[in-house]
């Protein structure tokens, strides 16, 4: 997927004025936030689990090479294959090679953000394969030819009416308007595809080093059909998703559904270990895992290591007021919201996504709900620091900061300017506020500027107490 994060500002403004989008976002926001809060409140050890999850992830990241090697050995022992992909291109090539080798015509896909990250669908389609997204949300946006706008609710930006239109066009009608009817229609269409599929591709929420298993969680069961009915199952996953044992996986599973959708647990939690064995009733003939680095090992070595704890629950974006205002597409690449604003510049380049770390009020709500306690605002500020150091920050802003520093480190000058400012603003105010202020349109276009009283506090204080 081509990165369009440089257009963030325009896309954000567009999104704010898109009535359907705003309607869809409003509905989603209330649901996710309220349900998560309820789940967190009902589990007395929830905060303790967050701390444990953070510590466990830190331990894994400190020993990532060890666990990845153990994982690879266990997958191989179970009859599967592990492939290492340095970057998106290599990952695409590995998967294409497997698909071509088995002469794949139809490829079904469970939900996988890594496959979005590496631009997999486009590559498969380019090589003549039919690619079918089987997650309902992913299926909807595939019909709409759009990328996901949320990492766990990819079609959250769509209203029911829009889905009705898409389905009518794709499936030939009659037009359904009830949610249950829409779901049944998608289920019927998708059912055939599962059986036709030569290759089924899923993500991997967790990779278990102890057993060589991949774990996926879904609410629709589409992932299970994708991976068990196709002849070949390919798992795409980031290298950071490995956990030592099944016990560790359960720690994260307890946090994942609660943080993501506000469920106690997802409907389906599926553990896959290797291909079909003799005597198994079903399962794929081949089982492959493509471990994608794509910038992750670089993060591991630097200041953004904390970001690799991410378990992709989406709580940060559900609680982000900026995401809530503009939706996921404004961010211009695969990962939106706070986690995306950290990942996108790191994966795609700092200067390709200037706005993402800056379009944040640092209000901290994301970090307060993150199940693995990633200090997202600190990481976003750190990216601003890197932009500043690398001269990606706009020149005007740098100049302004230099002037501010010069003045603010000279208290007498600073106070004199504050006094002038207070008097000026007070003089031009009407009834306590200023409606329009030249050069401050960004403030006064949106709101009045409350007017100062005329003299500064320090002046008045000197007057009242200075002589005593």
């Amino acid at each position, binding site marked *: 997927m081509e990165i369009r994060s440089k257009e963030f500002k325009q896309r954000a403004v567009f999104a704010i004025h898109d009535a359907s989008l705003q309607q869809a976002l409003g509905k989603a926001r209330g649901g996710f936030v309220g349900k998560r809060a309820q789940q967190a409140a009902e589990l007395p050890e929830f905060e303790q689990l967050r701390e444990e999850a953070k510590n466990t992830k830190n331990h894994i990241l400190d020993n990532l090479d060890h666990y990845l090697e153990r994982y690879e050995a266990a997958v191989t022992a179970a009859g599967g294959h592990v492939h290492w992909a340095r970057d998106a291109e290599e990952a695409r090539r590995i998967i294409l090679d497997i698909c071509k080798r088995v002469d794949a015509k139809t490829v079904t896909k469970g939900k996988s953000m890594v496959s979005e990250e590496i631009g997999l669908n486009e590559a498969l389609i380019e090589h003549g394969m039919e690619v079918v997204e089987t997650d309902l949300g992913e299926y909807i946006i595939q019909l709409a030819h759009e990328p996901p706008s949320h990492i766990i609710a990819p079609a959250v930006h769509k209203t029911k009416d829009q889905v009705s239109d898409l389905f009518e066009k794709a499936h030939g009608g009659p037009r359904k308007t009830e949610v249950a009817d829409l779901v049944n229609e998608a289920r019927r269409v998708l059912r055939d595809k599962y059986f036709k599929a030569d290759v089924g591709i899923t993500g991997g929420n967790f990779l278990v080093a102890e057993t060589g298993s991949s774990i996926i969680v879904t609410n629709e069961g589409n992932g299970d059909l994708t991976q068990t009915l196709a002849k070949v199952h390919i798992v795409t996953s980031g290298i950071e998703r490995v956990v030592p044992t099944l016990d560790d996986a359960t720690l994260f599973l307890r946090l994942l559904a609660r943080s993501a959708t506000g469920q106690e647990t997802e409907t389906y939690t599926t553990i896959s270990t290797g291909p079909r064995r003799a005597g198994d009733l079903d399962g794929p003939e081949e089982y492959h895992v493509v471990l994608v680095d794509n910038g992750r090992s670089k993060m591991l070595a630097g200041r953004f290591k904390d970001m690799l704890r991410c378990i992709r629950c989406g709580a940060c974006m559900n609680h982000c007021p900026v995401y809530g*205002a503009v939706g996921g597409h404004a961010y211009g690449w695969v990962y939106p919201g706070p986690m995306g604003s950290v990942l996108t510049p790191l994966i795609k380049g700092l200067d390709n996504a200037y706005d993402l770390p*800056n379009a944040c009020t640092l209000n901290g709500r994301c970090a307060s709900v993150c199940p693995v306690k990633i200090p997202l605002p600190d990481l976003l500020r750190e990216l601003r620091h890197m932009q500043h150091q690398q001269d990606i920050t706009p020149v005007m802003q740098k100049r302004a900061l230099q002037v501010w520093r010069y003045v603010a480190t000279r208290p007498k000058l600073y106070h004199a300017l504050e006094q002038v400012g207070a008097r000026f603003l007070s003089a031009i105010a009407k009834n306590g506020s200023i409606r329009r202020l030249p050069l401050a349109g960004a403030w006064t276009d949106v709101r009045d500027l409350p007017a100062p*009283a005329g003299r500064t506090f320090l002046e008045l204080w000197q007057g009242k107490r200075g002589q005593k």
Partner: protein
Amino acid sequence: MTESPTRGPRVGLFATCLMNVFRPNVGFSAVKLLEDAGCSVEVPANQTCCGQPGYNSGDYDAARALARQVIETFENYDYIVGPSGSCMATIRHDYPVLFQDDPMWLPRAQALSEKAWELLSFLADVLHAAPADSHYDGTVTYHDSCSGLRGLGIKGQPRALLGEVDGLKLKEMEDSEVCCGFGGTFCVKYPEISEKMVEDKVRNVLATGADTLVGGDLGCLMNIAGRLRRINAPVKVFHTAEVLAGLADGPGLAGAAKESD
């Protein structure tokens, strides 16, 4: 530098930039509340800004320059107290981070960090003070400023203190913990997004039917008050300290009135 007549802990008042220019009444309210609680309050003349604009813009060097100035100015007081969760969270949390690789300044940054308090949490958690005979006629709704709430754990303290004010009725708004869209330079860098956020905030304020909005950070309050005024909504906006000190008798922020001085 001046000294007030009362005895008790020696408090250096951090006169935040917005307070100094836009709302001196908040400073006098802070002084009154601190003195009523037995502190001796001083306002060092050598202070300017805490450095947060530099820090949050990624200019760590500028932030450090300002931080050193604040440390030098305030390190000899028993406490540094300011009427802002945002500035005080910077001093409390960010100064030690800024100097983590500087063995000369780190101990001084840490020492100041430990005695840096936001006004209302200082009154409630350190001084265990209750506002003396203050009175406010009205229904008040409280906005939780993000830095105070998540940075310093300020949530119950202002509400408890407001609960002591005679005549005041507190009515909670929906999403009181959601950012108002100010965010320092965010509000002028991304005005359309900021507008959407403050619009949501104002809708929640108005839904309470409260006649007054209070909060602990002037940045947020100026944003919300400015928006309320723009849409001609008749809600008065005060800093919590003004109401507690009984000095919310004049016009609120962005409110119609003559000069208060």
